[in-house]
């Protein structure tokens, strides 16, 4: 499954915007404007090559890391940042912080406990199946989350019920500070697929065009009602677990992964294909910076909620 010229350029722009958002958030965290910790998604934007293929009526569940999942679906950086600032104009009116929901764009909510998304993805897919629609669910999880019982529960049930789900394990090699090899026995998260009798494949998550092709096939398979697929994206977060946290990893390992940056990789490929020029690259970067500057202004100028708003929104 190959993306069109337009799709490739669209993906590239989206990845640049996501990176610009992350860099801007890091700056705001360091300035003390964000009262929660933030797990930067820098380095893992290759996942966007899967998410960008979702239709607006498809569903997604996502991990605690980064903003690339929200940006892929069309959430606005201004309202995302306002939420991180705790402002009333944020997507959750300042009640969620990094737990973002943006139902209009299919961002359905974020679990604090990792791995709890997996049964939720099963429920979304169950709704699709009962109604007889052709939507799909992409459910992201990390290598650490592959240990949660809920992950296995959900893989089992999705296979049993042939649900339209694409499971994507973003294996960045670490759960917190601990390397994956210290808590899992399998070499690739996709090996779990064999136990549940579904297709499983492990690929380079930092190669956006490969991610696009493989995820595209899995999405098609799910849309046809042929059931779930498990894809492992081998990737890396180039920053620490959270902004400001101590990073115990080998600096050489970090440097090596920085050379494999997914955005740079796609940029090189698009340059080779003559789809990008240095001029276009600069203008895409410039546009993203302008967008993020205006997001910061929006978040700064937005009001905080009123204390009595704490009593709203418990029940529908």
């Amino acid at each position, binding site marked *: 499954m190959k993306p069109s010229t337009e799709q490739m350029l669209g993906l590239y722009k989206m990845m640049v915007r996501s990176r610009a958002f992350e860099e801007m958030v890091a700056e705001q965290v360091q300035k003390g404007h964000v009262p929660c910790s933030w797990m930067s998604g820098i380095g893992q934007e290759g996942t966007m090559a899967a998410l960008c293929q979702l239709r607006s009526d498809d*569903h997604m*569940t996502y991990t605690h890391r980064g903003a690339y999942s929200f940006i892929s679906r069309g959430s606005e950086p201004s309202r995302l940042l306002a939420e991180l600032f705790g402002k009333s104009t*944020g*997507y*959750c*009116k*300042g*009640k*969620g912080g990094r*737990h*973002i*929901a*943006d*139902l*209009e764009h299919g961002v*359905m*909510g974020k*679990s*604090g*406990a990792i791995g*709890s998304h*997996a*049964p*939720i*993805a*099963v*429920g*979304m*897919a*169950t*709704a*699709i*199946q*009962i109604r007889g629609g052709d939507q799909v669910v992409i459910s992201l999880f990390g290598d650490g989350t592959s240990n949660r*019982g*809920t992950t296995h*529960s*959900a893989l*089992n*049930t999705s296979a*049993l*019920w042939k649900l339209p789900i694409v499971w994507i394990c973003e294996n960045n090699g670490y759960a917190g500070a601990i390397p994956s090899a210290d808590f899992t026995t399998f070499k690739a998260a996709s090996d779990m697929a064999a136990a549940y009798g579904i297709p499983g494949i492990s690929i380079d998550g930092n190669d956006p065009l490969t991610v696009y092709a493989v995820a595209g096939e899995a999405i098609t398979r799910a849309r046809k009602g042929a059931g779930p697929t498990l894809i492992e994206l081998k990737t890396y977060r180039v920053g620490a677990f959270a902004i400001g946290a101590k990073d115990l990893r080998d600096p050489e390992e970090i440097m090596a992964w920085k050379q494999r940056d997914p955005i740079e990789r796609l940029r090189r490929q698009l340059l080779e294909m003559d789809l990008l020029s240095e001029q276009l690259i600069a203008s895409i970067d410039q546009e993203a910076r302008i967008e993020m500057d205006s997001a910061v202004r929006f978040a700064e100028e937005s009001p905080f909620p009123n204390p009595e708003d704490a009593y*709203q*929104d*418990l*029940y*529908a």
Partner: protein
Amino acid sequence: MKKITLTRAVNEALREEMQRDPNVYIQGIGLRAVAPNSLTGGLHDEFGSQRVRTAPMDEPLIAGSCVGAALAGMRPVAELHLADFAFCALDEIISKAGKWRYMHGANNGMMLPIVFMQTIGGYVGGAAEHSQSPVGFYMHAPGLKIVVPTTPYDAKGLMKSAIRDDNPVLFFTHKLLGGTEGEVPEDDYLVPFGKAEVRRAGNDVTVVATSYMVSLALNAAQSLAEEDVSVEVIDPRTLEPLDLDTIVQSVRRTGRLVVVDEDTMRCGVGAEIGFQVMERCFSDMKSPVLRVGNPDLPVPYSPVLEKAVLPSSSKIQAAILRTLNPS
């Protein structure tokens, strides 16, 4: 009117709501092969395996997928069987169903219309992990409505309200109440949340009792009537929302309150209701509020030990008499 059991009443509510609304579906362990006279009996045959889903033996999956389906616009019902087993799914019930709408600032009108059915109760030799009634445990958690029906009429009308409610509802049926018979209308009707029912009127002591405890309290009230003690028995029917006004009005009249709940007393239903009444009725009280419940122990197996731990009519009678003669 017709006379049916409480189990049958719940079953009829589920069937009628599934007929009325295609977004309602039910899932749980073993639903394809349940007894015809159980809460979900006959539903699989009528609605098929898509809408009556036989789930793996996996409570977090059953409860968590209800959250996902609700976000996608369905009205799922989870049959979790024993409340003891539902503890496996506490993250899904308490942190997802109970808190997601609030945490996400009701983004775009986020709703989580889910019913979590659970069976509670001891008195069946089930021992500590088959006998729990953790109703008060969920009262502690924000965002969950709590239903504890005691009659077939209430059970049917409250279940219909639960399914039509746009919020997560925990629906607790007691093991010993399933066979209770009562009159139920032929036509569609709802019982609203947050309206207590005075099961017996009286002037000397107010007793608030939940679920199966209502029948024990009524027995106690009947026995004491022979000793010229007039007991009012209030069945809150839902604990969230709680109809505190009905309880307060009664206590202002009687000046005495006993709260009966089957679960462990510490931080329980009795502690909460007793405290709320104290906050509003302190000057009307003639004696301290008393609780009847499990004295903070796991429910033991042997009938002799179980009886020592769980509430009974005689323990309720003793508590009522103590409020009349505080030492």
